[in-house]
């Protein structure tokens, strides 16, 4: 009996023996089916591990069994991996260690079973599910587009701890194992088979039969042998040094030292060749124990669960899913409109893109075809799929042919009158229950609803630039927007591969409202003498995906200035933008799109090198007084401006919960995921300390000089309440 008493068990755990069924379809064959009644998808949680223990004991004692097959309740449902939620709740490293060692023991017993063991898998096979499979003599997987196999643990701030960090390199060699574990990628069936992660592929309908044949020895197991490569690569000190160096560089480029898990995984995998099983168990247990209780893991798991929860927005309260949106219209063929339409066409939605300018439509068509061709070239799409994706984008000069569309998204100029006119025209041309969405970033959805027939179907659907890369969509609820409209729009966002967050209809919604003061503080420090390169470097080190000046160049000065202006209008004096950015704008200097911004994007440079800073920035600087500020103060100043505004937005409940709030900051602003998002960061600093930091910065001469505009450093009431009560944002939910 293994001891799992310390391992948290779900509240609705079923009776012992209920999670696993053992079938005996023929003499000598035992089929172990994971089928937990309390889960929609079986997970390696405490009750299931307990049952597995019992099943193994039974099999070990049964001499008549020749072959054992481990499989899921359906060919596309094996196991969803470890019970991440339970692991994230453990705070005692000793308990983590014990739990890891216990499961290691269990898995080792699978490996030692006398009969031939086969894992018959399909659908998602992540983490623990794959680790269990690797203990079998062979893995057979369904050759299906839903099959995805890998070890994604590092994405959650831990390492493959149930043998994966060792069994995978033993199985496929160092280079492939590093690639799989450090990226956390889930591989499609064909790729997994080519890499040697699984031994045989078959169609879902044959999975049971082929697994039985393999288990009973009717078909010989053919395993990819690494042979010489094992000695030339895995055990060759020179090759290992090279591999290690390369992998380390790759990890540094992404993690910047902020994420401990990939580094730990790298060490484990590199040490795997030559280690014994018991050494492996101990090493993994130590690593998991150290990581799982750390703040990074807790943050990443928090974000993961928040993003899973966000998908529930795509369902009605009674659990039903809204009807899939098959046809859409997008009005406005600019970067945003074109990007949205292209994304839709790529994601199975027929879309009609309307613009008054044929040239804009041509450019959008060109970009769409280019993107699809790229996916085709990378074999993400077959020729037929690529053709369909191209065919699904229609264009139209002027609004026409929208009568069959389920939703229209307008992405025309940010002028209320223009948007109102377009929505009015759409309302007249479309079915009465079609959604009318606006991609506005600065205008009020409620105001747009006024005077439109059926205002309950008008909603904000705010995509971020670049549309295809940014994972967040803000679903903006206007005063009259109905719940059904919110759900249907969120479902579309999910179908498009995006994470929806519902926000209130306030200026800038959530993401731009937070980015406004953040960017403005950076500009102000630049004006007072700090180099943009230094500021960018500091914030990247803080954990932002790019520094504020790189971001300004990406966004475009004109767009950023417009957004800052509308925030100022909406919130008054505390959002007063520094006038320097406006002064830098010229047709040649709008950021990356015009070639020049804070950086010179036209300069010749080697691939992978970042663009050099512009030579003339000095003339926009007005003093040198901030030059002597410490790195710490510079980072704090910029981040605090965002935290201060974030506290106000939280107070107003611009989004419903702290978890969704943080999800939006991570997916929308790129706020350091390992810090758990903006509020997570604020909580880790503590409200009391934030208060004193705000006070300190508010008292600095350059801030005092701003007069009333310094108001952004005045703490929100909620921050004071939290400080007094010793509470956290996330504690308030």
């Amino acid at each position, binding site marked *: 009996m293994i001891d799992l008493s310390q391992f948290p068990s779900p509240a609705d755990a079923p009776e012992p023996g209920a999670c696993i069924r053992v079938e005996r379809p023929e003499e000598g064959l035992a089929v172990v089916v994971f089928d937990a009644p309390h889960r929609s998808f079986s997970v390696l949680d405490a009750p299931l591990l307990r049952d597995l223990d019992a099943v193994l004991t039974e099999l070990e004692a049964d001499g008549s069994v020749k072959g054992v097959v481990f499989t899921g309740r359906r060919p596309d449902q094996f196991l969803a991996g470890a019970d991440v939620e339970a692991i994230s709740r453990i705070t005692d490293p000793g308990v983590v260690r014990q739990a890891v060692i216990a499961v290691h023991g269990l898995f080792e017993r699978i490996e030692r079973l006398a009969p031939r063991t086969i894992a018959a898998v399909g659908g998602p096979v992540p983490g623990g599910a794959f680790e269990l499979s690797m203990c079998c003599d062979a893995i057979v997987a369904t050759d299906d587009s839903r099959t995805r196999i890998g070890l994604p643990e590092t994405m959650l701030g831990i390492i493959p701890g149930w043998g994966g960090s060792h069994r995978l390199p033993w199985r496929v060699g160092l280079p492939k194992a590093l690639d799989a574990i450090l990226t956390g990628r889930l591989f499609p069936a064909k790729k997994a088979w080519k890499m040697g992660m699984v031994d045989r592929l078959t169609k879902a309908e044959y999975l049971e039969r082929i697994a039985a044949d393999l288990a009973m020895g009717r078909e010989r197991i053919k395993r990819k042998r690494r042979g010489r490569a094992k000695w030339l690569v895995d055990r060759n000190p020179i090759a290992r040094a090279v591999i290690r160096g390369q992998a380390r560089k790759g990890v540094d480029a992404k993690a910047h030292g902020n994420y401990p898990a990939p580094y730990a995984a790298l060490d484990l995998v590199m040490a795997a060749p030559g280690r014994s099983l018991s050494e492996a168990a101990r090493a993994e247990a130590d690593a998991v124990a150290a990581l799982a209780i750390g703040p990074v893991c807790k943050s990443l798991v928090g974000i993961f669960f928040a993003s899973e929860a966000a998908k529930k927005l795509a369902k009605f309260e009674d659990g039903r899913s809204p009807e899939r949106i098959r046809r859409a219209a997008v009005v406005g063929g600019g970067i945003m409109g074109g990007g949205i339409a292209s994304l839709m066409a790529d994601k199975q939605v*027929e879309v009609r893109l309307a613009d008054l300018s*044929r040239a804009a439509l*041509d*450019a959008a068509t*060109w970009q769409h075809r280019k993107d699809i061709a790229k996916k085709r070239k990378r074999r993400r799409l077959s020729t037929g799929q690529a*053709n369909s994706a191209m*065919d699904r984008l*229609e*264009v139209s000069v002027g609004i026409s042919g929208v009568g069959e569309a389920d939703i229209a998204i307008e992405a025309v100029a940010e002028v209320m009158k223009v948007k109102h006119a377009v929505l009015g025209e759409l309302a007249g041309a479309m079915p009465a229950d079609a959604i009318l969405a606006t991609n506005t970033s600065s205008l009020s959805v409620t105001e747009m609803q006024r005077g439109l027939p059926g205002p309950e179907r008008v909603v904000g659907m705010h995509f971020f630039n670049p549309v295809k890369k940014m994972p967040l969509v803000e679903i903006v609820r206007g005063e009259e927007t109905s719940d059904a409209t919110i759900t249907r729009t969120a479902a579309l966002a999910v179908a498009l591969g995006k994470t929806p967050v519902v926000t209130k209809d306030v200026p800038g919604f959530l993401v731009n409202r937070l980015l406004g003061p953040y960017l403005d503080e950076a500009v102000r420090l630049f004006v007072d003498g700090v180099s943009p390169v230094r500021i960018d470097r500091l914030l990247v080190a803080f954990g932002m995906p790019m520094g504020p000046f790189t971001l300004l160049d990406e966004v475009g000065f004109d767009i950023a200035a417009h957004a800052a202006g509308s925030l100022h209008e909406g919130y008054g004096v505390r959002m007063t933008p520094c006038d320097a950015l406006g002064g830098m704008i010229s047709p040649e200097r709008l950021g990356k799109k015009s070639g020049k911004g804070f950086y010179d994007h036209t300069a010749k440079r080697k691939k992978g090198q970042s663009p050099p800073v512009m030579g003339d920035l000095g003339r926009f600087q007005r003093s040198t007084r901030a030059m002597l500020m410490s790195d710490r103060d510079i980072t704090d100043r910029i981040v605090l401006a965002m935290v201060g505004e974030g506290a106000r937005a939280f107070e107003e409940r611009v989004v419903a919960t702290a978890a969704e709030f943080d999800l939006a900051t991570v997916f929308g602003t790129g706020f350091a995921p390992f810090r758990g998002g903006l509020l997570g960061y604020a909580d880790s600093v503590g409200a009391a300390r934030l208060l004193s930091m705000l006070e300190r910065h508010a008292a600095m001469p350059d801030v005092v000089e701003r007069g009333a505009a310094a108001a952004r450093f005045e703490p929100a009431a909620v921050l004071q309440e939290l400080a007094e009560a010793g509470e956290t944002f996330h504690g308030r939910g």
Partner: protein
Amino acid sequence: MIKVEHDEGPEVVIAAGLRSPWVRAGGTFAKEDAGHLGSQVMRELLVRTGIEPGAFDEVVVGSVGPPHDQANIARVVALRAGIPRHVPARTVARNCASGIEAVTTAAASIKAGAGDLYMTMGLEVMSAYPLIFGEKMTNLFARLMRARSLGQRLAAIGSFRPNFLKPRVALLEGLTDPISDLLMGQTAELVARDFGITREECDAYAAESHRRAAQARDAGRFEDEILPLFPLGAKEGSTSVLHDDSIRDDQSPDKLAKLRPYFEKPDGVVTVGNACGITDGAGALVVTTAERAKALGLAPLARLKAWAWAGCEPARMGLGPVHATAQVLDATGVTLGDIGAIELNEAFAAQVLGCARAFESAEFAGGKLGRTSPLGTLDLDRTNVNGGAIALGHPVGATGARLLLTAAHELEKGDHELTLATLCIGGGQGGAVLLERIER
């Protein structure tokens, strides 16, 4: 006013139509693919008519040379255009008349009671016609495939000679009549010699075709017909093709006179200037009954009054329109003079002029048509009023769709009761469709 008596059976109409610009082969559509080009036009016509795509009884596409990887091009186009999979699709061919064949096939099915709503199309991407390995190279490949031992393989490879790589040009071979062994241009030379048609006449006719086409384009005459398209393979910053692109605004008989005869040197009359161009294009037409069109809320362009297909001498295939028109006129009792506008496909200027002579020739009427009197005069002022294939181009399988679409629009735009679309067909055939105005 013409006395019109409707045929038996349901009243067949062309309910709506749309075509791509006709684009010179190897030009801006060089990277186009038949499935893509056709489906874009069909998709837009579906949206514009608002017909529920699943309502069609069948999709019929006429094409002379479907790509080798899309043999039933009709099915490919239909599915890519968003027509649901339960609607069947077939590809039909009658050489240059394939586009009309699609329509008459659909009309015949309606008359037979098989259905009452058809999506038809004429489609040709001549840019994509392949080069084919010659016989020697093909034999070598066959030997290689059969080779069992290394020796056999080496022997096969050793038999290679550089001249094996000389390709066969599918386009050129496709435009040769295998019965008479004549290139299409050579059949036109034969017609020119028969009727004493001169080089000057041909060049003058060709120049007029360009003038009329340019005028029609500038007057917006084709706006309702053409869907501007952004071609596959277009470079960044390039624009959609808005018009047929082979119309020459500055064409003149003097310029044409400088060209050398192409098919018969040195005395022939056919040059590349007074012959139709090799072209890419697609045209879609919705064929249904008057009743169904009404139910769908469509205002039909024309009623299909009568049509005929006729065979003639392969070596003089250019006279096919005379043979087919004769049958249509006989069947309906209409005379040439009753017809307001005629679209007679301009394969070659010499061939159009030859038709004109044959229409009024008593000898031709007696000898070839078995009639006692000539058919009448083909009024060239009422023929191809918007220019023809010499200016616009001739994407073989697609041309029929354009002839019908233009002739149908001409009923209202030219205020006519009847219009005719007719064309000659490689292999010695003619086709003619008589269209009648319908209350809209």
